[in-house]
């Protein structure tokens, strides 16, 4: 579980996060949504420990990040997996090399043990014949799956995804969403996803937080988002005619 306690983050005169408090529960897919410039990326980078908030704090399973020693922080980092928007695969390494990288860096496993683990996670993300291919030789969807495999290879407690569906076709995007949700439940990890994709919100949003101008404007589940009266949320989520109709149908069905 990750508890975020009234965090503030500024860059020069720009006050990006103005006091966000929320909780991300274990075994659930937690989504951060909001318009561009709302502070989503800064918030995610604070959760990752890449930015340190000036005020407030973030506790990982009860341990406040700022109270940790450097060694404890390093250990915590190894319990985090991250899927970047552009996958961020090491382009000079093969798929196998990318997934094996965290194991080589942080474990004392033998080569065969590492290979077995890599095979297992690549199988888990449905990538079987891509071991020796380079990232440039595989599709965007496959790259995302490699990134997920790399993120889970160390059995993380926390999985962070930044726009995991960006640049993917709708069918592949759904596959990636489903994969992240399945992995979250299977590994019982705390997953936090930064997204713009409303399909993801409707499909896997077990907890959704909506950021606006650096503040937590709204939080709830995917079912609650249909009923909310919050104008900022409805304007953002139901900005397209299609989603407006879906919402009307949902409300009529409920009534």
């Amino acid at each position: 579980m990750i508890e975020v306690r009234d965090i503030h983050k500024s860059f020069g005169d720009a006050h990006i996060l103005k006091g966000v408090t929320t909780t991300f529960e274990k075994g659930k897919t937690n989504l951060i949504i909001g318009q561009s410039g709302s502070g989503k990326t800064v918030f995610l980078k604070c959760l990752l420990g890449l930015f340190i908030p000036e005020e407030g704090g973030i506790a990982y399973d009860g341990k406040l990040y700022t109270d940790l020693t450097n060694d404890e922080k390093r250990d915590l980092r190894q319990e985090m997996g991250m899927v970047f928007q552009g996958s961020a695969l090491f382009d000079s390494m093969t798929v196998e090399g990318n997934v094996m990288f965290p194991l080589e860096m942080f474990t004392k496993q033998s080569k065969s043990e590492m290979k077995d683990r890599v095979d297992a996670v690549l199988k888990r993300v449905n990538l079987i014949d891509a071991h020796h291919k380079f990232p440039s030789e595989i599709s965007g969807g496959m790259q995302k799956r490699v990134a997920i495999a790399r993120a889970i290879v160390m059995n993380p407690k926390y999985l962070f995804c930044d726009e995991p569906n960006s640049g993917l076709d709708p069918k592949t995007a759904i596959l990636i969403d489903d994969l992240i949700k399945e992995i979250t439940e299977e590994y019982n990890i705390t997953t936090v996803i930064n997204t713009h994709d409303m399909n993801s919100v409707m499909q896997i949003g077990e907890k959704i937080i909506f950021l606006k101008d650096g503040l937590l404007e709204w939080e709830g589940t995917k079912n609650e988002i249909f009923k909310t009266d919050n104008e900022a949320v409805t304007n953002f989520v139901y900005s397209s005619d299609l989603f407006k109709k879906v919402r009307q149908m949902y409300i009529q069905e409920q009534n």
Partner: protein
Amino acid sequence: MNYLASVGSYAIMIREVFKKPTKWRIMKSLIFKEIDELIFSSLGIIIFISFFIGAVVAIQTALNLTNPLIPRNLIGFATRQSVILEFAPTFVSIIMAGKVGSYITSSIGTMRVTEQIDALEVMGVNSLNYLVFPKIIAMLFYPFAIAISMYVGIFGGWMAGVFGGFLTSEDFITGLQTDFVPFHIAYAFVKTLIFAFVIATIPSFHGFYMRGGALEVGKASTTAFVWTSVVIIILNYILTQLLLG
């Protein structure tokens, strides 16, 4: 003020490079890879340029020796001095600042643009140590490349001098051995080692701290080359004054 801030950031970067080392098993393979990329892949151009510059130095000297009282073996002497003292350590380093420096800046800059450096940081890897330290160690082998440059440059001078009919082989070798000061070799290699550090770190700095996209990677490579060359030229003056002055 910006320049001062950059110098400060560069110093902080150097400190971070030597902190929290990467596992030796991985570092070893990175170092070998960098030796191949930075040193071995540069030998061809170093040999090519050195040969022809040595030859041109010999021809230029020969053509300017119009006074019959000046012995022809001066051609060998001048070639040796030019190649060992300046051409091999300094001018080859400026060429390397272009070849190796732009490779370093663009490879690290591309990793920055594609979030690969962020991925390293998130995993808890000291990205500066992982990316820059192997390049610094690999560049410790740079003096070997310069030794080859010295040899080939002098050989080029000998070829041009002898086969161009400017002097005999014996005269050239006599010139090479005339007033030889072993400290000049030490001076050249001290310069080379310092330039090697500059070539490894300044382009890394420009690549690591760049912002933007593909266009900015190109701009960062150009800026890195300019600054690496400027620093090499200034250090060359300072070191010459300190060691030979």
